[in-house]
């Protein structure tokens, strides 16, 4: 038993000169993809959340529709549509670009709901009080609503970052050269699927785990500060 585990593990140093640099490069692609799609999702999500509260009916309808569609269709279907489905129409996207747009657009639907819930959780008396002391709508949002809402928003936002990090693995299916695809290629070349998939599993874990811990810590801290505010 111990012999076979040792044999299993020894494969790594033997192949490291070959696997190491490739896996390392692919890891950076994964991280880049996560950050790009997270940024896009945050911006889009904020816009849609604001749009959903807009007084203009068409804008509101569009934003509600967007959220429903983005949350109702699998990321993979959207990625395929962007990467393969647009080609007959003459739009050829780079795999990385298609990946981050696809991930960002789907995540934006969830982001919008996160922002809306955060802003909606602030009692409307806060805004009224801000107006009463003579603040403009912008000022009341900037100095009163937003600082309070951000505390509610940050934990689910971090959660979304973890989800995006994990979802970048799906982009391997449209040939984005990130961790999963690299692992699959190397596995095919070396006939060692178990080694490589375990390796990338461990890498994903150590990328996501610190974020999970951070999320939990922030959550706890914010809960405490809320309790203090009530006391």
């Amino acid at each position, binding site marked *: 038993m111990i012999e076979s585990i040792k044999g299993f593990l020894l494969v790594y140093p033997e192949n490291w000169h070959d696997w190491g640099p490739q896996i390392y490069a692919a890891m950076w692609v994964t991280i880049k993809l996560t950050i790009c799609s997270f940024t896009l999702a945050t911006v889009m999500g904020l816009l849609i959340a604001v749009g959903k509260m807009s007084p203009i009916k068409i804008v509101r309808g569009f934003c509600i529709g967007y959220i429903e569609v983005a*949350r109702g269709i699998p990321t993979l279907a959207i990625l395929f549509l962007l990467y393969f489905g647009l080609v007959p129409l003459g739009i050829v996207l780079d795999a990385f670009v298609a990946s981050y747009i696809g991930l960002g657009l789907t995540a934006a639907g969830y982001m919008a709901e996160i922002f809306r819930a955060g802003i909606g959780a602030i009692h409307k008396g806060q805004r009224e009080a801000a107006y009463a002391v003579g603040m403009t709508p912008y000022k009341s949002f900037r100095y009163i609503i937003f600082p309070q809402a951000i505390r509610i928003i940050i934990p689910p936002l971090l959660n979304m970052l973890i989800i995006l990090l994990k979802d970048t693995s799906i982009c391997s299916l449209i040939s984005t050269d990130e961790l999963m695809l690299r692992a699959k290629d190397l596995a095919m070349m070396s006939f060692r699927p178990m080694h490589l998939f375990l390796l990338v599993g461990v890498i994903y874990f150590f990328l996501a785990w610190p974020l999970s811990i951070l999320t939990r810590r922030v959550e706890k801290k914010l809960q405490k500060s809320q309790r203090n505010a009530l006391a």
Partner: protein
Amino acid sequence: MLTELLNKVYELGTPLLFGAITTVTLTLSSLVLAIILGLVLALIRLLNIKVVNALISTFVEIFRNTPVLAQLFILYFGLPYMGIKISPFLAATIGLSLNGGALLSEVFRAGLSAIHFGQRESALSVGMTPWMSLRYIILPQTWRITLPPIGNYAIALLKDTAVVSAIAAPEIMFYARNLVTRTFDTTFIYILAALLYFCLSFPLARIVDRFERNQKVWQ
């Protein structure tokens, strides 16, 4: 023009509908298994045995912090390496339910801890056995709290089944890719597949909305 379009939808949609059957079966079976696993894990955690709890939380952390795709690949490509060969559908069911079990165990844990311990004490004081208090007092209340997150999980699961096409389980995306290699009608087929997913998830989302609204009324 219209008949042409309808013919096309019929011709390409039928195989996709076959895929949808697998998608739904896969979702339902993984959902049931994940609920059972999640509940069992959450209940075992209540026993407060240190070693067991540490094991369970390691399991939960691992499954929550790695992509489903990596888990599926390890199960499907990795296990034959150790001499275990399983079908894509089975690998998908096992992978998704382990993943879901890890997720839902946290949901159930939160739900169980939201029940005031006085509920259990009063159940015991009227002569119920610990099992009865769990079955008739604690779980019905937990169920009510956990229903909305379970519903949300079901939607996420339905969408996650699309990933399963990567290990060649014959669901919607798998059929869509096969159709594409046969007809090259990429745009149309993938839009159809996306629509099909939307038709499956939209009613589910409405049901979850209702759960959430009902819960607000209770509170």
